């Protein structure tokens, strides 16, 4: 195993992670909700939409974040996105992420951050599942195909 020291950003990633933790902490303690993006989004697509207003308020905050980041942070704090996937791959991946997160009741935020913080064995299994699939797929697309 070789480490990519050029792109390794431990402090910025730790800071960002702490911010994710603070947001999750506020959401459960102040609003009494689990911060899980796929669940929040998926709840708006259910046949009978329940409590749409808090979901929309949260999403508006998410949508405002790139503008806020531009105003608050120096531009070199945010890594410039590199998107290797082509359009077809993006569509297939989007479908898989949409279906998979709803079927498995959560994604990186709900299971990965909140679930593991709750010490939930169920979320640990979900997190190990999606991480394992991620490792395998990236191995295949970067080293096999």
């Amino acid at each position, binding site marked *: 195993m070789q480490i990519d020291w050029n792109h390794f950003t431990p402090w910025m*990633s730790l800071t*960002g992670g702490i911010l994710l933790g603070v947001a999750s902490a506020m959401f459960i303690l102040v609003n009494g909700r689990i911060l899980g993006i796929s669940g929040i989004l998926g709840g708006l697509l259910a046949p009978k939409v329940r409590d749409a207003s808090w979901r929309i308020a949260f999403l508006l905050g998410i949508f405002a974040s790139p503008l806020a980041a531009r105003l608050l942070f120096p531009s070199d704090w945010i890594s410039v996105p590199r998107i290797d996937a082509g359009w077809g791959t993006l569509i297939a991946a989007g479908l898989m992420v949409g279906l998979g997160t709803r079927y498995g009741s959560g994604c990186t935020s709900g299971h990965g951050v909140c679930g593991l913080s709750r010490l939930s064995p169920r979320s640990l299994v979900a997190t190990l599942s999606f991480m394992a699939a991620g490792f395998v797929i*990236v191995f295949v697309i970067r080293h096999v195909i």
Partner: protein
Amino acid sequence: MHRLSEFIVGLLFGLGLLLSGMTDPGKVQSFLDLAGAWDPSLAFVMGGGILVGVVAFGLAKKRTTNFLGGALHLPTATHIDKRLVLGGLLFGAGWGLAGFCPGPALVSMAAGQDKALVFVLAMLLGMGLYEWAEQNMHAKQIL
């Protein structure tokens, strides 16, 4: 008050994703690329989040109401089943393919990236398909 708090939480979460590097699909894939030049940064993202989360959820478990006096919706499901694992595997495969998971995809879409917009539209279609399948399969008791 509630709506303002939810908006601020969304904003903080989006800022956290941007700072952490999660909105860079190349960085996400480099974290998942153990056999290549590995970028361990995202382990620090999860570590930082859990560090704060453990304290917050520890506190939440001892409470019956939230700070605003309303209900605390802590998950009650504990079963580990096929759905959980298959859903996780499918999600992880899509995550690895594109380098996007739901939160960062929404943030990148809001930043004006056309590729993130297409990913989000496909993701919403996938979530819609799930709702449709739940309705129809359950009715026929296939799932």
